[in-house]
């Protein structure tokens, strides 16, 4: 079996196209991100941000209001005002954002930039910790102040950044989305391997299918080789980001590697599933490759690869999507452990990812266990 895994591994790493997408494309993207985001960070020095807070009379969320006030003077300068006035000031650029203290807190911004990204991440961190804040408010109101303080501490909610040496958390989020994308690019490898055990798709697959090998070991061999290649590619990417680009991804390396490893498995399983699916009768390898590429890019778009605010927006509007979007799960896992040190959220995401991987591979095996075809 090792003999076959070795050759399937060699087949993958020698495939120029596959290796471009699995390794070189993420490295190129990481380099571009590094150049863009580092310049952006250097260009804008951190200062306290002026914001407006609009409280709703009917649906105010006092914990959010308290949370924002607790940041006053440290990260933001908060002015409580009417919605009309706040919008005028926002348009004039006198405030960078307007927080709405409604049942579901929200934020209005006029333009995109580092300051707006910081405001977004503040709101995002509140939303992700809201349940905890409310629980403390209801059960131990006297502890609320200390909780808010702990949330402000460097390793819990928002890390105070040194703009000269490190990237802002929002910038790190782009890298997390990039790692998510690179993990999910394992889909290309999974797809390629899935095509190799379906005799109706190629002569090569037919030759493999007539060999005296059971279907299950064939699946294990092909998936193992794809996961090995993808994990190696991702390790190289992480090494490149850390050692060559000099971007610190934090100190939780075991967690980062575990997320990446599970992300790779999930990516390979998604590709394998697409490879196994027979949506239309004449679905070619190219069509399936495009489908993997399209799905991966869509998932990454929703996870904030192109715009950090996207994940926050989805968290607000359709939170379920973030819980089932593999790219968002990977990025969230990394963010929760590196930025928020939230182990519960981290492990929750990991469990969902493992569950999805098992589900996808089970469906794939169910589909491909059929060994006789109507048409070849």
């Amino acid at each position: 079996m090792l003999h076959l895994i070795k050759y399937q591994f060699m087949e993958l790493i020698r495939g120029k196209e596959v290796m471009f997408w699995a390794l070189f494309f993420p490295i190129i993207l990481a380099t571009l991100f590094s150049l863009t985001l580092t310049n952006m960070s250097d260009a804008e020095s951190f200062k306290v941000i002026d914001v407006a807070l609009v409280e709703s009379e009917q649906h105010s969320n006092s914990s959010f209001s308290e949370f924002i006030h607790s940041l006053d003077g440290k990260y933001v300068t908060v002015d409580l005002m009417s919605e009309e006035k706040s919008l005028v000031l926002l348009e004039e650029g006198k405030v960078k954002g307007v927080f709405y203290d409604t049942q579901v807190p929200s934020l209005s911004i006029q333009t995109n930039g580092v300051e707006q990204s910081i405001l977004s991440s503040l709101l995002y961190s509140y939303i992700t910790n809201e349940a905890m804040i409310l629980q403390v408010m209801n059960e131990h109101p006297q502890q609320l102040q200390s909780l808010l303080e702990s949330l402000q501490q460097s390793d819990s909610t928002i890390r105070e950044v040194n703009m000269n040496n490190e990237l802002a958390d929002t910038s790190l989020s782009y890298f997390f989305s990039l790692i998510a994308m690179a993990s999910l690019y394992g889909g290309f490898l999974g797809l390629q391997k899935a095509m190799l055990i379906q005799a109706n798709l190629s002569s090569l697959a037919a030759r493999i299918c007539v060999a005296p090998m059971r279907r299950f070991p064939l699946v294990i061999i092909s998936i193992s080789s794809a996961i090995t290649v993808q994990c190696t590619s991702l390790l190289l990417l992480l090494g490149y980001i850390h050692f060559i680009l000099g971007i610190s991804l934090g100190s939780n390396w075991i967690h980062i590697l575990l997320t990446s490893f599970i992300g790779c498995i999930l990516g390979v399983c998604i590709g394998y599933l697409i490879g196994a699916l027979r949506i239309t009768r004449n679905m070619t390898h190219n069509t399936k490759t495009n489908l993997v590429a399209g799905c991966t890019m869509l998932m990454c778009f929703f996870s904030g690869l192109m715009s950090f605010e996207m994940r926050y927006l989805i968290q607000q509007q359709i939170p379920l999507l973030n819980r089932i979007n593999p790219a968002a799960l990977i990025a969230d896992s990394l963010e929760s452990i590196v930025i928020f040190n939230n182990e519960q959220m981290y492990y929750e995401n990991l469990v969902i990812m493992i569950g999805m991987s098992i589900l996808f591979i089970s469906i794939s095996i169910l589909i491909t266990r059929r060994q006789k075809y109507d048409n070849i």
Partner: protein
Amino acid sequence: MSNIIEVENLVKRYKELIALDHLTLRIKEGEIYGLLGPNGSGKTTAINCILSLLKYDKGIIKVFNQEMTPTSYKSKENIGVVMQNVAVFEELSVYENIDYFCGLYIKDKVRRKQLVKEAIAFVELEKFQKMRPKKLSGGLLRRLNIACGIAHKPKLIFLDEPTVAVDPQSRNKILEGIQALNKEGATIVYTSHYMEEVEQICTKISIIDHGKNIATGTSEELKQMIKTGETITFSNIMLKPFQLDEIKNIARVFHVQYEDGNLQIKCRRGNHNLIPILDYMKQNNIVFSQVSSKLPTLNDVFLEITGKELRD
């Protein structure tokens, strides 16, 4: 010799199209069994059904006296397949490809190494074993394709049109190789639409058309089945209509075709068909530039049975 493959009344439909129409084959151990038929006649479909890759609607398939199913692993261990299209990994070298496919059958590393070495020597690819397939010529690629299918020394080998798009020199090497495999004890099932090849190497032939086995036998037996014993052709000949009728009445002549100055005469089996025809030409002062006589080919067999050329 016992039957190594038995196919009984095999029917395979693709919706309205009948790809295999009650096909029956009996292939004996040690034979080089040719499936001859035009493209789309059902040769590859028959092989895919025998290999249990394709579902079929009706019929019984037995290989090594066992009903063939996708999980007939014991039977599959003794089967080698050379696909119509070259089926190798582009990213692996010649050696690695053969080693990979041999590894699907042979677990023992030492034995596999020896078998791979022998397969490379058999197809004469020693000088190319480190090269990737894309650097090989069409003929060498076909030889690699064969080596991948036979490296594990199977008792039964399916070769599905292994010489398509191959130069004559490589084609001869491939055909010699197939005969050598047969001499070593392997039973060969060989499909082709090249009648010369089938005639050259096959010990038994089934002519397939529209999914039906229309005739089975040795090359000679098949030729005996048809009326044509000899075809005589005259080039650049001028004939009057009554002369055509007179030629038709010559002994054993049963078909005359005259077109664009060329005359084709088909005679039944018998000795010295040419002499009375030449005598007639001489007596009537009929001039021509060339005459040739041809014994029947498998194409004639196919033509006479189906009414169309093998390569139509």
